[in-house]
């Protein structure tokens, strides 16, 4: 909104019962992790401006909401720490020592938290209620991303440096299989009874049989296919291509490419806003792109160095009045 318009608009709204504030509340907050800046940007989704930064310890990468929705858990890899934030306010709730937390996800049944230790070559399964380590799986090498089966019985982990995909049985806490999958596998996603793997060293995503790890299909998406995300209505599969600098929309059922959008600057993680737009971190541009798939255009938001994980909390109160620092 132009500054002059807002200057006129705000006093009117104040008189009319702060309609503007209600509107801003509806749009919420985005949390963007600045990996190389060691901080978390708090972005007002209404104004699309960064309003403040939450300091992390060393090098945070990914974040996930706890099953009860009360905390955002940020994995600080080099800091060996989980940072718990109140998703509504960004207030730090606690810091927990955990070795090398890179990619992390809670299982669909809420029982487990799986943490990939990318630098330490380990996949750790924690009790999601107590954060006690249940099982450590040593792997070769560099466990990157992960996905669960819907019944939480198996977790799949891409092993970036050995070009493999590994499956671990969470009922017996034993390895199931580890198989070659493609060059430099990164993002992993469960979709329609299969495991999808983004192959960053190539231009494809691999469709893998979860029972034995065999590849049943390869689909070209773009150079350096890095990460995959399913739209909230489960109809569109979104893939970010790191080397090609593009984001593609695919039919989630047929895996046919529907549209391609140029997103330069190393597109990485995606989250979906209620208005249908996609928020995409651009690792080497210090920016978040807000892509409108209808028009194919995107707006940019300045954040910190090497923005990686991001999480939208549309229900959170607007932080517009919070002083920046």
């Amino acid at each position: 909104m132009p500054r002059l318009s807002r200057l006129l608009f705000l006093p009117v709204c104040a008189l009319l019962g702060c309609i503007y504030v209600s509107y801003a509340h509806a749009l919420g907050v985005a949390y963007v992790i600045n990996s190389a800046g060691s901080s978390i940007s708090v972005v007002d989704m209404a104004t699309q401006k960064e309003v403040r930064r939450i300091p992390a310890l060393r090098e945070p990468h990914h974040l996930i909401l706890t099953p009860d929705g009360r905390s955002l858990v940020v994995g600080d890899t080099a800091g060996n720490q989980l940072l718990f934030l109140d998703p509504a306010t960004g207030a730090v709730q606690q810091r927990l020592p955990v070795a090398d937390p890179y990619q992390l996800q809670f299982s669909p049944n809420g029982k487990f938290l799986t943490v990939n230790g990318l630098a330490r070559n380990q996949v750790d399964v924690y009790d999601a209620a107590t954060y006690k380590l249940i099982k450590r799986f040593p792997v070769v090498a560099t466990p990157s991303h992960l996905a669960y089966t819907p019944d939480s019985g198996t977790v799949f982990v891409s092993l970036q440096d050995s070009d493999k995909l590994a499956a671990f049985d969470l009922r017996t806490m034993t390895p199931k299989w580890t198989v070659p999958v493609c060059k430099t596998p990164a993002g992993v996603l469960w979709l329609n009874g299969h495991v999808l793997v983004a192959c960053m060293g190539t231009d494809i995503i691999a469709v893998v049989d979860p029972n034995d790890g065999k590849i049943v299909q390869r689909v070209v998406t773009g150079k350096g296919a890095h990460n995959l995300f399913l739209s909230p209505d489960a109809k569109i599969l979104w893939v970010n291509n790191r080397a090609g600098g593009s984001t593609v929309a695919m039919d989630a059922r047929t895996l046919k490419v529907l549209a391609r959008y140029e997103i330069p600057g190393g597109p990485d993680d995606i989250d979906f806003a209620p208005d249908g737009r996609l928020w995409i971190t651009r690792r080497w541009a210090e920016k978040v792109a807000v892509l409108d798939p209808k028009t194919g255009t995107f707006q940019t938001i300045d954040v910190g160095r090497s923005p990686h994980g991001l999480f939208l909390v549309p229900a959170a109160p607007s932080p517009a009045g919070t002083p920046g620092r």
Partner: protein
Amino acid sequence: MDDWFDLAAGWLQENLLIPFLYWSGLMNWEDVSYGWALFALYGLAQVIVTFAVCLPLERWRPVERWANQDAVWVDMVYTVLSRVGVLPFVTYVLFYRAQVTVTGWMADQGWVAPTLESLFPVLLGKQALTFVLYAIILDFADYGRHFLAHQFRWWWALHSLHHAQRQMTFWSDDRNHLLDDVIAFVWFGVIALLIGVPPLQFPLLVLVLRFLESLSHANVRLSFGWLGERLLISPRFHRAHHGILAAGQKSCNYGAVLPWWDMLFGTADFSRDYVATGDPSGEEALASGTWAQQQMAGLRRFLRAVPVGRRVAQG
């Protein structure tokens, strides 16, 4: 200003490094390559800023003038290798891997290595202040490392390469034997593990510190005045450290950026004025050889000085 470097590194990453990594099947290095791009660009900026400031100073008020400056060219090679080329990359990768392994093991035991920010939570979010405190601690650690390098015969054998330069200029700061660099790397690696030095959070301030270290080696008649020399190390103060020792003289002024440690431990000498530099006790190749000849000469001297532990007076 940090943003300019970040955007330049991003451009380098997107247009040169990523296409190369993708083409060569090395995309698993894509995160590391961005770190290297930042390191290399800040290193390049260090070289350019140092060159732009120090060269006019050296032309303006040189301590010495030399007809032949071949030895200075070799020092330039050291600087480029150290600040822009392979060394920053190796340092970044090794440092990162080592730090992750050790601190991760400690986290497994339920103990996170202390950092200034965890010891003093008030520092969280105050990046500039935190950096200044880290810089002071690291400068003290460097004083200790440098002092010990002059006390042990084997270590001095390596470190004497740094002191062999008779044509000391701002390029001489990085003139070190590779093994001496490795020791320094391990030394700071251990310190970093103890206090959790953040690797890439304060690159611009690191640039300033490295500039001051280069300036202290410059061939220029420059003093910061009575008070200034007790706050920051000047070219005059550090030149005394590189001076050829007369009979009965001891080495002095081991500090890198801050003279406080020399003052605290009685090794400061503010009286020596623009002395001649060099190390007459070493073979000539250490002073005037090529980069490879200097390295080999340093290695020979080191091997002659082993076994470790004997103390020496020179330097």
